[in-house]
């Protein structure tokens, strides 16, 4: 597209809008309140979601195959195949393996490995979040080279993950505490039907590779001694469950993961996978970290409302406020509460919520929603 498309658009500015704004300006003492509140809350809110969504200024937005073709799905049908992406990432697919793109944008490359074995060599300058969905396990890449082998034997699905360089985080409901951080030289086996407490079998790989040029989160670098100790204990399974949970959850890493979970929940929601989205949001809420937990509750409230689970939605919106929702979003939660309370016949409660929404400076459609119950 080389020529501007302005000739396709109306050049008329709405005279009524200009009059409205002119009248506001004559009465105005400053910028509209809601804008100010957004400016004030901008840092907090942005930190919550934009952390993983914002693109590094010089990173490419979307990964393509090195050949220039769009990355849609990869399949090794008759023999092993190696696919290279435009950012230098390589994926070696064993015969019979298929990988589909779920999301590919500035912040995330999410792939679904439906079957087979793939060795991933993730380029350091790749997307901030590189996620492989492998059925019963999700592998979130922090490091650079790892293998995911998804297979089924005797009707039992299992996934083996082996890290050659760097660090990955594996999430699965079949893992104790649902999460394990793996460093280079560690192998993990996850099986769908094993009891929770026995599901994890983490062991050193045969030949741990040298870790070089591996982008590791600062928190991990800073706690190298502790990480080694924890890693050793995870391998031998000697840490009690609670301690293991803490050990594999360095503070910085988990904050980043909360944001990644929120992003993934958003992806699922937009894809119509509400159950998965709900599960992720509930996980972030359960972690209780501010402000992500409150944002997750707000998002979950909307999801539940859309699913016509009014009572649960109401409770969740109330919880989002209690969890310390950024002030710029409090009005949104109150306006939703006003509607939900009104719909179940609690008109006093609806009026109170509507009033609070307006006081919080809610705008646009949410303002209209609140005004209907004042």
């Amino acid at each position, binding site marked *: *597209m080389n020529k501007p*498309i302005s000739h396709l658009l109306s050049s008329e500015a709405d005279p009524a809008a200009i009059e409205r704004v002119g009248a506001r300006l004559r009465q105005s003492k400053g910028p509209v309140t809601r804008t100010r509140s957004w400016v004030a809350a901008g840092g907090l809110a942005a930190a919550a979601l934009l952390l993983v969504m914002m693109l590094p200024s010089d990173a490419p937005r979307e990964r393509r195959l090195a050949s220039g073709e769009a990355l849609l799905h990869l399949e090794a049908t008759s023999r092993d195949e190696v696919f290279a992406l435009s950012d230098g990432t390589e994926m070696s697919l064993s015969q019979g393996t298929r990988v589909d793109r779920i999301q590919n944008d500035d912040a995330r490359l999410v792939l679904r490995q439906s079957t087979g074995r793939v060795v991933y060599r993730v380029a350091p300058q790749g997307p901030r979040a590189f996620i492989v969905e492998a059925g019963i396990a999700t592998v979130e890449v922090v490091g650079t080279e790892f293998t995911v082998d998804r297979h089924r034997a005797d009707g039992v699905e299992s996934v083996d993950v082996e890290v050659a360089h760097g660090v990955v985080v594996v999430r699965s409901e079949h893992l104790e505490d649902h999460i394990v951080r793996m460093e280079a030289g560690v192998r993990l086996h996850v099986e769908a039907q094993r009891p929770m407490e026995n599901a994890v079998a983490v062991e050193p790989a045969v030949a741990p590779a040298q870790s070089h040029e591996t982008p590791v989160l600062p928190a991990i670098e800073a706690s190298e001694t502790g990480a080694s100790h924890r890693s050793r204990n995870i391998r031998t399974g000697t840490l009690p469950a609670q301690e293991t949970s803490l050990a594999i959850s360095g503070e910085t890493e988990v904050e980043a993961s909360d944001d990644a979970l929120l992003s993934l929940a958003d992806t699922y929601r937009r894809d119509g996978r509400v159950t998965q989205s709900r599960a992720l949001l509930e996980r972030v809420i359960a972690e209780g970290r501010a402000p992500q937990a409150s944002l997750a509750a707000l998002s979950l409230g909307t999801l539940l409302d859309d699913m016509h689970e009014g009572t649960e939605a109401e409770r969740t919106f109330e919880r989002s406020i209690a969890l310390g929702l950024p002030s710029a979003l409090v009005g949104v939660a109150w306006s939703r509460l006003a509607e939900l309370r009104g719909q179940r016949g609690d008109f006093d409660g609806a009026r109170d919520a509507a009033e609070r929404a307006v006081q919080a400076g809610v705008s646009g459609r949410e303002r209209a929603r609140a005004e209907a119950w004042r």
Partner: protein
Amino acid sequence: MTVARRNHEVPRVLDQALPSDAELVSRVRSGERWAADALYRRHAPDVLRVVLRLTANRADAEDVLHDAFVRALARLDSLRDAAAFAGWLTRIAIQEARMKLRRANMLRRLGFGHVADATLDALAAEGIDPASHTELARIAKELQRFSADERIAWVLRHVEGRDLQEIADLTDVSLATAKRRLTRASDTLRTHLALNNEEGVP
């Protein structure tokens, strides 16, 4: 006298009778409120048109127009070249629009449908052919995926027809950054439109 009207500009015959921007700015600085109103009347249509195309939301665009003027008038003393008022005001408006876009993107990600009631297809000129209208709708849909910065760069270039240097000046970034944002936005749009064609998405 026949005077062509463009973008709600004041007819030239009247324009000649009005003071210049520099003079109006000077009068606002000396406390003459009518001059602020005159500046608003003169520049509001163009600013509103731009911010509407940027934000794709009528209420947001009105807020941006309002806040841009409030901030411009409050900071008028910092304007060195009073004759450059129009460009300076547009730059402020784009900064305000950027905040609105970021807010809208975040709300969308939290599951709150942000009403895009002024998308490009909704702003289409009367009488354009159906194919162009459809193309505008497809572009508008893809633009919603963009970050605020990329959307602004793309709209300024491909809708407003601004050149790279103007985009850099209006968004207060280097020429290289403006170029990078524009390239990224254009590549993404091209890719997504092509992908949608492949996948049969309208």
